[in-house]
């Protein structure tokens, strides 16, 4: 009784997004859902001990859209999802601003939780975004974290 075509919404944009509205829309498109999981990623006020004034996010137009779609397709292939929303911003973001959201809808909770965490882990390691933190002490590019690469590895399927 899962609808044939899952709902997909993938956006790369400078503008802010309305998490509440996006989740309502996801629910409306997935009337059979028993579970909806969302992740909301925010610019932190502190980074490496300094107060953050803003964060600049650069991306690779053209490649970004393809990378995000590929991540969503992988999730849809691995879990019985009814719908997915993925929105990632770029440009200059203030402290506490929203950076990214991923939301998943499924019949049962495990698929929604796993697929949402999976997409965040893959976003962190496969989507061409680069963050620069701008604070009182200056600007610095955020370094890729080994922990993010490890988080991705845990989703490896047995050969």
């Amino acid at each position: 009784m899962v609808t044939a075509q899952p709902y997909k919404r993938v956006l790369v944009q400078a503008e802010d997004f309305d998490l509440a509205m996006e989740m309502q829309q996801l629910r409306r498109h997935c009337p059979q859902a028993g579970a909806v999981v969302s992740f909301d990623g925010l610019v932190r006020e502190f980074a490496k001990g300094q107060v953050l004034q803003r964060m600049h996010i650069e991306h690779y137009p053209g490649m970004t859209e393809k990378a995000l779609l590929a991540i969503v397709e992988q999730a849809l292939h691995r879990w019985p999802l009814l719908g997915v929303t993925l929105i990632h911003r770029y440009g200059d973001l203030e402290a506490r601003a929203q950076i990214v959201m991923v939301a998943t809808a499924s019949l049962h909770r495990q698929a929604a939780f796993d697929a949402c965490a999976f997409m965040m882990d893959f976003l962190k390691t496969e989507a061409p975004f680069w963050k620069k933190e701008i604070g009182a002490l200056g600007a610095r590019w955020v370094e890729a974290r080994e922990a993010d690469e490890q988080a991705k590895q845990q989703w490896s399927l047995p050969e």
Partner: protein
Amino acid sequence: MNITILYFARIKEVVNYSSEQVSLPDEVETIIALKSWLSNRGETWQKLFSGSGVVRAAINHELVDDMATFDEGDEVAFFPPVTGG
């Protein structure tokens, strides 16, 4: 062979280019050969590709490794490990 090269983030700031069109000698057709060819431009380029900071590459929007080959008209991109999400 003519290709477009794009640079992003820290690498863009180091080389001071965001994109360029280059005409390559015939033997330069892999990412590793392209890195080597660009390194001949001087110290900045040499340090970039030989230094400890990893440089990732994409051909036509697909992440690739050093041995990947490109063709006439392709878009090659160099950038640091990604930090989105």
